């Protein structure tokens, strides 16, 4: 443990004064089309050693509240009401130079993307030492000692050797630990962590949460943890505030709010969050036993040996990555097969081979017994469709919604004549619970959830049998996610659709899928019915995955 030179946090703990208190904070953005109030009348305290979770959906004002505390609101936004007190002293009206001195010294920050928080050109040790020496009166050698201690505390193995590495030499999770060590370097009283684990895989996420929590306990620092993920809050925070449209909806102990939410908004929010302990799905129309899609010994290699010229001159010795390595599974007609795995596990590559976007290196994908890359290619275009992760990128921004949905109909020649096509589009829009008038608008006029409905309507327009859904809800807020999943379920039962659901979110897979396969580094390590894999996992990797998922069922 590193010896502490100044202990403002400990003193504050003795006097029981909140480290930070926010009083009636209001943030306004005077925009062209009138004033936008991002934060309205928000008040809370954080005591020393306490982790306060701030949750809310996108646009709830949670990040803006964090930015307001550290004085980093982007213009034209500004604080128009209320005050922020740090250890009893008002800081929201300090001049920018004074505020800058506070950042890093008394308030540490951890952001979502560890790459942007570290300077790629400097060794991590230099960055930590610089921060320590800027704020604390210690020598170079002492600072380096401290830096090594901090890195060890943050969970970096053999920090004596790693301290002279550059940021790119660390993995994402390790980098976030370095950022945490950097945030703690000057012994701040308050740490603001904005989505600190959202860019990380679940197994890494769990470790980072533990590190953050342990360090706050041992140092008595207060933490404001901003996240959209209620599971992370459930595992980390002591108290939480729920925000919606810039206002605080509910405040209380984490366990109380998750188990007994009082406000309507919170009740709906909690209800919309899927859990890995949810009951498994019961189909209105039970799935058949016959397989519609069969994947046999699928392999995909990527040649990473660089450009053509490089390859010509280097000769051999190219680097080949097995993105998908001998994967076999089959999907029953009318059922949902969930494919889970962390980033780089090959799940998206698998999906792209199954819809005809990238050819497999070897192995086959059979639809109704025909290989979609050979005899079944023409049939595949009609029977197989895909729903993508990002509804902002999957719809052409220059096309009207009607043309987007009609594209498969026109490309495949399924209907002719304007009125017939328009009739079909209107029918499809109704099926995804959108107004038929939507066909004359452009995608940017819709919210994320509505756009995903449009993408679903497009996928349905060729009357497919098999739809590959690649992370269909991970870009959406939880309440919208619940609606989209619900729609997908209903459409499946209505049309007898077969789904391949790819997700990193185990809880979503649990509530949607009948069977599930677990991918790790391109290999299928375990598969079977959902309840069997989730409740009695056989493979070690599956067990690790399930135990590290932050889930609302894990609240104390």
């Amino acid at each position, binding site marked *: 443990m590193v010896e502490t030179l100044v202990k403002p946090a400990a003193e504050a703990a003795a006097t029981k004064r909140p480290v930070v208190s926010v009083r009636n904070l209001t943030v306004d953005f005077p925009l*062209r089309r009138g004033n936008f109030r991002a934060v309205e009348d928000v008040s809370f305290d954080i005591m020393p050693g306490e982790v306060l979770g701030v949750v809310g959906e996108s646009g709830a004002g949670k990040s803006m509240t964090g930015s307001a505390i550290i004085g980093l609101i982007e213009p034209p936004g500004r604080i128009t009401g209320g005050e922020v007190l740090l250890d009893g002293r008002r800081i929201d009206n300090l001049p920018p130079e004074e505020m800058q001195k506070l950042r890093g010294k008394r308030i540490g920050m951890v952001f979502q993307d560890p790459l942007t928080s570290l300077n790629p050109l400097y060794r991590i040790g230099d960055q930590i030492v610089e921060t320590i020496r800027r704020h604390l009166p210690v020598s170079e050698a002492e600072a380096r000692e401290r830096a090594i201690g901090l890195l060890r505390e943050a969970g970096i193995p053999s920090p004596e050797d790693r301290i002279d590495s550059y940021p790119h030499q660390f993995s994402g999770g390790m980098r976030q630990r370095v950022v945490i060590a950097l945030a703690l370097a000057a012994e701040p009283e308050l740490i603001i962590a904005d989505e600190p684990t959202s860019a990380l895989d679940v197994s890494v996420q769990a470790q980072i949460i533990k590190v953050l929590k342990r360090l706050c306990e041992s140092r008595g620092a207060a933490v404001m943890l901003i996240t959209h993920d209620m599971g992370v809050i459930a595992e980390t925070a002591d108290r939480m505030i729920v925000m919606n449209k810039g206002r605080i909806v509910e405040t209380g102990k984490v366990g109380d709010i998750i188990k007994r939410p009082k406000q309507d908004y919170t009740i709906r929010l909690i209800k919309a969050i899927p859990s890995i302990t949810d009951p498994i799905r019961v189909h209105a129309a039970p799935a058949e036993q016959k397989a519609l899609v069969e994947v046999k010994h699928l392999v995909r290699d990527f040649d990473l040996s660089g450009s*053509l010229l490089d390859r010509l001159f280097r000769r051999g010795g190219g680097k080949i990555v097995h993105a998908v390595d001998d994967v076999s599974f089959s999907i029953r007609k009318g059922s949902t097969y969930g494919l889970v795995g962390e980033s780089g596990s090959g799940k998206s590559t698998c999906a*792209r081979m199954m*819809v*005809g*976007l990238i050819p497999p290196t070897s192995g086959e994908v059979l639809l109704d017994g025909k290989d979609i890359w050979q005899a079944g290619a*023409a049939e595949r*275009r009609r029977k*197989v*469709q*895909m729903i*993508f*992760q*990002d509804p902002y*990128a*999957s*719809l*052409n*921004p*220059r*096309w009207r919604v009607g043309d987007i949905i009609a*594209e*498969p109909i026109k*490309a*495949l020649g399924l209907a002719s004549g304007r009125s017939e096509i328009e009739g079909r589009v209107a029918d499809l829009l109704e099926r995804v*619970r*959108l*107004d038929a008038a*939507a066909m*004359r*608008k452009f995608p*940017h*006029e*819709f*919210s994320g*959830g*509505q756009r995903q*409905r449009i*993408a679903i309507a*497009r996928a349905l327009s*060729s009357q497919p049998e098999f739809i590959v859904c690649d992370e269909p809800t991970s870009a959406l807020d939880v*309440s*919208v996610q619940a*609606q989209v999943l619900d729609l997908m379920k209903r459409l499946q039962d209505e049309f007898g659709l077969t789904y391949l659901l790819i997700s990193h979110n185990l809880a979503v897979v649990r509530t949607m899928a009948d069977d599930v396969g677990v991918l790790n580094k391109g290999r299928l390590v375990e598969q079977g019915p959902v309840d069997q894999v989730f409740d009695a996992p056989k493979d070690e990797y599956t067990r690790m995955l399930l135990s590290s998922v932050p889930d609302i069922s894990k609240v104390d």
Partner: protein
Amino acid sequence: MSADTTRPAAPVAAKGALARFLDSDIWFSFKRSPVTIVAATVAAVLILSALLAPLISPYDPFNPATLNLMDGFTKPFSESMFGNYFVFGSDNQGRDVLSTILYGSRISIFVGLMATLFAMVIGISLGLSAGYVGGVYDSVVMRIADIQLSFPAILIALLIFGVARGIIPPSQHESMAVWVLIIAIGLANWAQFARTVRGATMVERQKDYVAAARIMGVNPLRILLGHVLPNVMGPVLVIATINLALAIIEEATLSYLGVGVPPTQPSLGTLIRIGQQFLFSGEWWILFFPAVTLVLLALSVNLLGDWLRDALNPRLR
């Protein structure tokens, strides 16, 4: 109904096209930039007056019957001995400088527009296909563009112009001059477009809406023209505007060097070439007014291009 579907879409949808334009961010940023408003006004006046030259020019400078050599070298804002009034003076043959400028800008603007359009068509088709196909084809096209960009554009235009004159029979030289000029300037400028379009295409190609079209078996040409092209047109528009100013200057340079349009249909460059012969003998206006027009035209179009680049760049908004 669910909360998500009841959320109202932007109210803009109900209005007409004009109302939508008046409400757009582009118009807003236009209104807020006085420099752009002045540039747009100047450009509009110059282009309109060039278009309407036959209607508004006080004299017909190319009709020998109306010319009088004795009117030559009349000073600006003064009347000649025959009672003809010349706003910008007259040249050695007694032609009204204002009228020659009006007719001259007509040719300059026409050559500039056509050359830019030509460069745009070549650049867009090569850039789109290179960016989408990739591989060896992409490397070859882009290396050619690199090589070409390492020469000054005017040099390439001169070269093409020279080659074209060698191919075309001398009797056709005069009548074909304008088209040769357009092709020469166009070929000298395609690389800029190709580079930009290729980069933008490579970004768009990765997007999921292209993947969705590929899954349903839309053919690549349709994907390129229907999906990718509309999404790469933003930066192309900016380059085209800036390129228009460049092409006008290049045409003037070529005509100034004597390889451009023939003196019988003078462009601004030809007028400057004629005018500079008299600069040192005191007849400054024959050079001065065409030169000022060229500067105003190029500058205003360039300023419009700069504004458009900023207005279309979301990061600078």
